[in-house]
């Protein structure tokens, strides 16, 4: 081994530290030229020569060129008592992300609750991920001539830690930015855990520049705990107020829910009623159309009947007139006719007893026949005249008094007041079904049902006494204007 040791000309320099160290200096110094440097994928290495930070090496194997010439270098060291004047060293920088590095404020953060004005003291702590972003800067600014640096633990040759170096920065940044962030975000102190991500982002933005100045960066920073002063009377007061406020909100919410439910039900009912009314109106419209059609048909039938009857009556009349003219031409008058009638009747009576009743004499037959015809014509013309008057135009039979038509009792629609024939079953205007009411019965205007005449409806209890909308005076049934103020109803 000694032989191999003596034959050793150069060295192999590679990382021999742990993964939690940020920077580590290789113990070998003043090594010879042609020394092999091996740098791992997650590392960088800086070669120092004569006190200068020269080359920065990434992953790979490199041959270093120092000023310590193998073998011959010993001769050069003679002038310095065997010690090499050509100093060289290598620092390894760990580029992995150091996860879950703990941080925390060293003292409480003072906070004034904006709602109540109550002063509180909060604490904040969490974890962060740390990584070297500029090896040279960290090495030159922070490590200096130490053997290395880590976050916490002090190791041999590590005279300080990053935690000690950055604690004031973190503490100040947290204290200066935490409470403004809470106020700016309108965060309720009792619901602060919901907004930890937001607070983490704000604090990270304020802390990172300080770290980057020394070649470090914080990929992620987490505020895991905001310590609330549970035993502080002020905080208890805030919690009580919050509970009261919450209960109030619950009540308001319930009220809103109930109101919304009622409104929804009312809307549903209204929609249902509108739908039913629409259906009913459609039904009534259809019924009305059907009645109109039937009425139209009936009217047309009646017109046809009328025309037919008129024609027949006209024909009978003309026949009667013709017969009368014939009789007049023959020299017979009305008296003769009546006399002939009596005789005919007597003859018929005798005929019935005797036999030959019908064929007795041409004159008697003519007169009887004429009298029958005239009487029939007179009676028929009177009736037809009444019918004809009822339709329009008037039809006057000469000599026959126009008999007025039999007086029919018209009715009024209970809904719109339209005049309807007595036998109408539905209103021609609005299609309302016409109730066959007795004299002491009426239709309630509120519920539309049949009820006895009186002051109140027997079905729904609504008042049956109509009152004027303007003056409030009682209005008799069927009135179109108010008796007191003349308001049109």
């Amino acid at each position, binding site marked *: 081994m000694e032989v191999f040791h003596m034959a050793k000309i150069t060295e192999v320099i590679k990382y021999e530290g742990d993964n939690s160290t940020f920077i580590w200096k290789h113990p070998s110094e003043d090594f010879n030229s042609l020394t092999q440097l091996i740098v791992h994928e997650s590392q960088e290495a800086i070669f120092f*020569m004569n006190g*200068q*930070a*020269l*080359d*920065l*090496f*990434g992953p*790979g194997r*490199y041959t270093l*060129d120092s*000023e310590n*010439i193998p073998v*011959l*270098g010993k*001769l*050069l*060291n*003679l*002038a310095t008592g065997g010690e090499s*004047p*050509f100093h060289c060293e290598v620092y390894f920088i760990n580029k992995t992300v150091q996860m879950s590095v703990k941080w925390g404020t060293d003292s409480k953060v003072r906070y004034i609750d904006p709602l109540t004005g109550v002063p509180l003291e909060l604490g904040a702590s969490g974890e962060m991920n740390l990584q070297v972003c*500029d090896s*040279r*800067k960290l090495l*030159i600014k922070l490590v200096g001539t130490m053997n290395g640096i880590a976050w916490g633990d002090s190791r041999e040759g590590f005279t300080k830690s990053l935690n000690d170096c950055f604690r004031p920065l973190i503490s100040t940044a947290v204290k200066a930015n935490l409470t403004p962030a809470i106020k700016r975000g309108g965060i309720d102190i009792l619901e602060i855990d919901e907004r930890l991500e937001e607070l983490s982002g704000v604090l990270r933005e304020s802390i990172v520049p300080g770290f980057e100045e020394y*070649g470090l960066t914080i990929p992620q920073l987490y505020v895991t705990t905001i310590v609330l002063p549970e035993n502080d009377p002020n905080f208890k007061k805030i919690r009580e107020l919050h509970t009261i406020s919450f209960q109030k909100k619950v009540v308001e919410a319930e009220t809103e829910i109930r109101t919304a439910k009622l409104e929804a039900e009312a809307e549903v009912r209204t929609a249902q009623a509108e739908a039913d009314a629409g259906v009913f109106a459609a039904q009534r419209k259809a019924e009305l159309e059907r009645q109109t059609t039937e009425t139209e048909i009936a009217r047309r039938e009646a017109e046809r009947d009328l025309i037919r009857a008129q024609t027949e009556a006209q024909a009978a009349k003309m026949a009667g007139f013709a017969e009368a003219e014939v009789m007049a031409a023959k020299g017979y008058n009305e008296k003769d006719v009546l006399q002939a009638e009596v005789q005919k009747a007597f003859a018929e009576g005798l005929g019935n007893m005797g036999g030959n009743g019908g064929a007795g004499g041409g004159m008697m037959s003519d007169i009887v026949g004429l009298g029958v015809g005239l009487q029939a014509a007179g009676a028929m013309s009177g009736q037809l005249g009444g019918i004809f008057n009822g339709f329009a135009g008037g039809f006057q039979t000469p000599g026959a008094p126009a008999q007025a038509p039999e007086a029919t009792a018209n009715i009024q629609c209970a809904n719109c007041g339209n005049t309807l024939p007595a036998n109408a079953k539905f209103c021609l205007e609005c299609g309302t079904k016409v109730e066959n009411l007795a004299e002491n019965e009426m239709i309630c205007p509120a519920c539309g049902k049949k009820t006895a005449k009186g002051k109140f409806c027997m079905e729904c209890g609504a008042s049956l006494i109509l009152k004027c909308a303007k003056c409030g005076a009682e209005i008799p049934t069927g009135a179109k204007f108010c008796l007191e103020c003349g308001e049109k109803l």
Partner: protein
Amino acid sequence: MKKNFKSYAIVWAIGLVIFNLCAFLVPSPTKFTPGFWLGYGFITIAFILHIGTAYFTFSKDEAKEKLFLNLPAITISFITLICTAIVAAITMVAPGFPDWLGAIFCFACFGLGVAATLLSKTAGDMVSQKEEKIKVQTFFIKALTVDADTLVSQSQIPEIKAQVTKVYEAIRYSDPVSNEALAGAEAQITLKFNELQNAVSENDVQSVQTISNDLLILIKDRNSKCKLLK
């Protein structure tokens, strides 16, 4: 340096005179024997070589660094002189000491010394060459660092100062060892830096910001390539 050599030469001459006086005036039974002259010759040659080495070390207007690197050569030649003198003196004065043995010892001593002197000189030259190379390679960044530092001092407006400080830091913590392949990138950096200097002198905040950002990108790019070319 020449003054130093003169002083050294005087000391050397005194040493030589003392040697000669000792050699010729001190009574000895082996005086003027072949062994005597052998030893005397080697010592004299050692003296001459030593003064020669001293001449090449001190006489030229060399920098202190060069002088330092040549010191081992002088040291070795001095040690060679001493060793040769001792061995040669034994050859000169020791009665019954074989001349051939004395010759071998003297020659070995002298030879090793000369070899060591030459090797140390070579080593010194190699180190010197490396240092020259490092100096050339790191000149660009070092010069730029000085210029950037000056620019920071010249900045009067705080916004400009902040931007220029960023540029200074980026240059300061850049890899100082350049490479031929980076000549283009470094030329661009030089041009951009000149623009920055003009913008700072004109107190143009907007231009300073824009140029600084461009410069930072160029420096970062240059450093990445530098790392790649290792």
